[in-house]
């Protein structure tokens, strides 16, 4: 209904085709959480890559992107840490780094933008990288797996690859702030009216649920700051989804996943019970593309998605 507002100054790389896309060999930055408490996300991503016929080359020596926290204390450190990661990708001949976390996407893109747009900062970064013989030449772009799915694989192809359609499962998208905002950093789609997750859900045979909470924040970054605030943000958003008939949620961000999956129970006292199971984006795509459900780590979720999948005749 509202007009789609696209950012005035879209980043130049927002829909560029990379060399990695041509060769189907991408740099892969899983991020800390996918290696620590959300290992099921890492594993499902690798299984999905197999199905898609692409190679995700993990940048094993990459550091944390610094998230908002290193940035809160020292922006230069956060930027140079990421320059180091990009230098590693370049050294492997890769020009496209794929992330599976909204927060990584936003912060890594912000760092890259600053490096590419400001010579002084690039020089500063390289003077430090030079101390251990590394160099970043500015030839890397950072994208979320979600964007890669749509731009490089394509929704039509994805639709054709589906072997286990979701039977109209009602899935509410939850984007996570940093994959859409700020628009001048991300700008792949309108941050006020995004629909990439809806498009993917529909391609998989699910029914996307529209609700006002989809672009709002889950509060993850302030979970330890003051008791109850993040919990309540989760409750508020999940209430909106539930009221619109959602049966499950899909998110491209493991931090959002931790919050949505973890806090709904505690939020019930203020927002009523919602109990919406939350899928990581690659889990649901991999499932529809035929990866056996047992391999996706669905049993690791606090709100088990398997009961609704049984109800919808997706698993036995």
């Amino acid at each position: 209904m509202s007009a789609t507002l696209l950012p005035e100054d879209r980043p130049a790389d927002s829909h560029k085709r990379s060399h990695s896309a041509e060769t189907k060999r991408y740099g892969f930055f899983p991020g800390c959480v996918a290696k620590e408490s959300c290992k099921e996300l890492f594993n499902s991503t690798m299984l999905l890559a197999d199905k898609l016929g692409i190679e995700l080359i993990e940048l094993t020596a990459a550091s944390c992107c610094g998230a908002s926290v290193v940035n809160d204390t020292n922006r230069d450190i956060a930027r140079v840490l990421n320059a180091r990661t990009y230098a590693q990708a370049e050294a492997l001949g890769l020009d496209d780094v794929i992330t599976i976390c909204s927060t990584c996407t936003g912060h890594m893109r912000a760092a890259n933008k600053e490096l590419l747009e400001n010579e002084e900062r690039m020089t500063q970064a390289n003077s430090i990288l030079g101390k251990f013989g590394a160099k970043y030449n500015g030839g890397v772009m950072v994208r979320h797996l979600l964007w890669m799915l749509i731009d490089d694989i394509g929704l039509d192809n994805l639709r054709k690859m589906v072997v286990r359609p979701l039977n109209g499962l009602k899935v509410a998208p939850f984007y996570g702030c940093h994959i859409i905002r700020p628009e001048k950093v991300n700008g792949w789609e309108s941050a006020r009216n995004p629909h990439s997750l809806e498009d993917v859900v529909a391609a998989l045979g699910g029914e996307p649920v529209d609700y006002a909470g989809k672009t709002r924040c889950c509060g993850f970054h302030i979970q330890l700051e003051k008791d109850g605030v993040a919990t309540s943000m989760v409750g508020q958003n999940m209430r909106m989804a539930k009221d619109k008939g959602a049966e499950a949620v899909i998110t491209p961000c493991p931090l959002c996943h931790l919050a949505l999956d973890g806090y709904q129970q505690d939020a019930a006292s203020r927002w009523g019970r919602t109990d919406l199971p939350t899928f990581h984006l690659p889990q649901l795509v991999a499932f529809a593309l035929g990866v056996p459900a047992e391999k996706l780590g669905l049993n690791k979720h606090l709100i088990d998605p398997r009961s609704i999948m049984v109800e919808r005749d997706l698993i036995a």
Partner: protein
Amino acid sequence: MANIKLDIFRFDEAVDSVPHRDIVAVDVPETMTVLDALETAKAEVDGSISFRRSCRSAICGSCSMNINGVTGLACKTPCNTVMDEQGVIQVDPMPNFQPMRDLVVHMDPFWDKYTRLKPYLQPADKDEDHQTERRVSPEDMKKLVDVANCVMCATCYALCPVVSVDPSFAGPAAIAYAYRFIEDVRDSKREERLAQINEDYLWLCAHCYACSYCPKHVDPNDRIVDVKRATIKDRVMMNERGPRHALIVNKTVKQTGMLAETEVIQGTVGRFNFRGLLKVAPLGLRMAAKGKLPPPFVKPIPKVDEVRTIFDSLEVPVS
């Protein structure tokens, strides 16, 4: 000309218990602003439609409202960017505020948080006779001009998800305005101001960038980060969770190259704060039952000494 149908939230706290909606149609050029359309509706159709406005040119900050569910200035939003094929535009009062009448809301919580800042210069000497000029270099002023553009429209405050669940949070505009005085070289109350904005939950900002939609490009989100950096630099209230969290994350990234979740949780809540740890424990136990707890120790990434070199080269010493 276009036939614009304004779908307006109607409510008068003095008489109504529940709001209703009116659809008011007006013929206006489609490039006119939503505020112009509202003015036309009020003048030609229904004089009781209430909204705030003054300057009509994005300077006074009065006309912030929800337009198709998106908060912004009505006088800065042309109808043709928001109307649908039938020419319908929904207008509602700003969220996060108590509605008073139609599009007018009670602004008190917003002003209260602003007043708490003592939003005026407090120089070291009072200079009651106004004898000396207080000079600022262009470089020092440069940091402040963006924030000084704030028109106090409360768009950011209405958009803030933290305010929506916890009204004790100062909110984006107040923190941005605190920055305006904290970084003013003429002011003498930097430390008090930092302490106060910390008490008003500076660190409760969730980094969501919703306030990046500020119509005056104040970017409160970035100013909030600046105030956090100033807090750490001046070592104000370092025992609170926010600064502790920031420092422990930095420490684990420097040591391992990764954000070590377990250590960060303990370091933020306080390793010996048993009551605090117990509060996070139920979730921890639920996660443990699913085999989902982060590992107690994180193995350093390959070539972690490079990460340490980066920190050592750029760190302004923090312990």
